[in-house]
């Protein structure tokens, strides 16, 4: 069997589930939060919720980069897309996110004539800028630490080429400050964390040792295939049952304790930490990245004098609570009735990684009770 196939088709699934059941009944109640959109999707795709024992509940946290970007920032981007000569280059899943007005997204603006390109890599945005000198190309640098090295690399490339018509609207976010803010909130009710494998591949598994160290909460850095998820849930459930919180790295085939030194050095060269606004969590100190002064010519915030609009979410939308894990997607009155992936009211329904989209797409609502 090919190495990666083992993780996709675990032969020992029933054995692992049995063990999870034993530890779960010892623990009594196990509430686990995933904080990575790809985990949210992987959990939904594998149907994991439908086979776990009833004591184990999986809750989606602030892991979808599109979802945690506040409506005001989206409004600002939509306005920027209307400026003459500006081309917005973005990862695909940001295109359908509505701002504070329903149905108003980069996709609908594009249908109305705005220049919007979906790119797979920030380097594609640099290439567009190099080949279209008559345009101002703005790359929307959204994401967590996973996408930060690529964003840093594209800024270095633009600097190397001395491209004057390229800039990055840096919306990058950092995981640790958001987790701390979530854990320290009065309504926090989670017993352990499935830590994001992709983020950890960049910043290292050690970066999550504050979970047991500062808060006595267990964490497991997990991969994304069914066997990864089952193994990680088992490890978390065991640590909770034995009341011995620690940090484990299940994703050893990709994640090093100290992360990826090359990626980290690129990030350090280009970015410094900065306060950042989160949907659902508000402004958090040091929770974002901003371009260092040296790279100001490629900083779209400075170049276009941008300020996020002060606009609220769509009325009735509970995305902010869903992001914090205090409401489940199906508990939102808009879910599946007014808010669907084709016509989303809130960001959690837009992104493929959003908790609401995952619940809708994969029909979790048939088995998932309300939080």
């Amino acid at each position, binding site marked *: 069997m090919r190495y990666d196939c083992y993780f996709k088709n675990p032969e020992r699934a029933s054995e692992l589930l049995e063990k999870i059941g034993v530890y779960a009944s010892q623990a009594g109640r196990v509430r686990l939060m995933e904080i990575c*959109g*790809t985990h949210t999707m992987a959990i939904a795709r*594998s149907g*994991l919720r*439908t086979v776990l024992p009833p004591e184990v509940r999986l809750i989606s946290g602030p892991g979808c980069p599109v979802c945690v970007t506040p409506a005001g920032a989206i409004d600002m981007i939509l306005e920027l897309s209307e400026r003459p000569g500006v081309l917005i280059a973005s990862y695909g899943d940001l295109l359908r996110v509505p701002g504070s007005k329903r149905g108003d997204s980069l996709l609908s603006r594009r249908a109305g004539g705005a220049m919007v390109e*979906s790119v797979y890599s920030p380097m594609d945005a640099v290439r567009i800028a190099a080949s279209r000198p008559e345009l101002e190309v703005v790359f929307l640098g959204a994401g967590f630490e996973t996408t930060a090295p690529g964003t840093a690399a594209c800024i270095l490339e633009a600097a190397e080429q001395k491209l004057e018509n390229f800039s990055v609207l840096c919306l990058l976010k950092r995981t640790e400050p958001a987790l701390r803010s979530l854990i320290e909130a009065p309504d926090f009710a989670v017993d352990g964390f499935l830590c994001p494998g992709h983020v950890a591949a960049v910043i290292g598994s050690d970066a999550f040792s504050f979970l047991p160290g500062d808060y006595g909460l267990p964490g497991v850095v997990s991969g994304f295939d069914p066997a990864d998820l089952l193994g990680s849930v088992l490890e978390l459930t065991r640590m909770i049952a034995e009341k011995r919180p620690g940090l484990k790295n299940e994703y050893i085939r990709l994640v090093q304790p100290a992360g990826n030194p090359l990626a980290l050095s690129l990030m350090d060269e280009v970015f410094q930490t900065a306060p950042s606004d989160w949907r659902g969590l508000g402004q958090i100190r040091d929770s974002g990245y901003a371009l260092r002064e040296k790279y100001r010519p490629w900083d779209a915030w400075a170049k276009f004098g941008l300020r996020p609009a002060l606009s609220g979410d769509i009325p009735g939308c509970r995305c902010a609570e869903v992001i914090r894990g205090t409401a489940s997607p199906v508990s939102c009155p808009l879910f599946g009735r007014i808010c669907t992936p*084709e016509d989303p009211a809130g960001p959690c329904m837009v992104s493929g*990684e959003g908790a609401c989209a995952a619940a809708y797409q994969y029909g*979790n609502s048939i088995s998932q009770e309300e939080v």
Partner: protein
Amino acid sequence: MEGRITLDYGSGGSKTSELISSILLPAFDNPALAQLGDGAVLSGAGQLVFSTDSFVVSPWRFPGGDIGKLSVCGTVNDLCMAGGRPQYLSLSFILEEGFLFSDLEQIVESIAREAREAGVSIVTGDTKVVESGKGDGIYINTAGIGFRRAAFPGQSGIRPGDAVLISGSAGCHGAAVMMARAGLLREESPLKSDCRSLHRISGALLDCAPDGSVRILRDPTRGGIATTLNEFTEGMPFSIELEQDAIPVDPAVEAACDMLGLDPLYCACEGRMLVVCDPGCADMFLEAMRSVPGAGQAARIGTVTESLPGRVLLKTPIGGKRILTKLSGMQLPRIC
């Protein structure tokens, strides 16, 4: 409808259905159109099957085919799915000023080759040229006529217990085109479009099919297997339950989908056939399909049940269950 056309309306998913049902059907209502099959069965001298399709794929050349081959396969396959034996095609080009003759010749050659393979003649056509910047190089429309050799009851003939078969692996075309579009495909990659004419496979199946044993045939193009099966179950008193382990997916497609954040079950196929049939005939049909070169992976992937009417369910490798919905909007690559 209010607003403007967005790309979502061309995705083949629920937005496309909305466009068809709210603007097109009310305007052109007639019994042949109302069947909403891949092709229309026309009354007249004998029974004719008629279908049309437009091709706008970008890039026009992709691993495993090009827009020319696709424009023949697409219409030929629609005719086959409606029980027809494809005979005649029309061929219309919309070319953008500046398009290279050498590229056009290559496309025409591939059209001719695929038409020979499918046994159809190109009998009429048209060419228009639009100004530079007003098109994407080349668009093609084909329409096709076939003679009807079999009739299927369609969606309403599906019964609990029926078997669901597929003639090959899922999602190759969609995954190959998306990877080519992203500039991520190397020459030596095993990832290729499944673009092919289905006349041999559907022919082999119909050659051995007892009357009434085939309920419906459909080629799962835009929106993939998940969307097509949803079209079968929508509003009906039955569900379809799939075994994920039984659905053939090439490792290269799986890897590409992992990279792009796509699901193979939602990626277009351009040379696969879904069959819902009498369960007693399933093994015989699989054997017939597998006898055709290139269809060796034909498999039974699911069963019609009554467990959750109107829905398509998937049993995952760890024993979990989830609902497969229609594709909503375009497949957009995700952030990480």
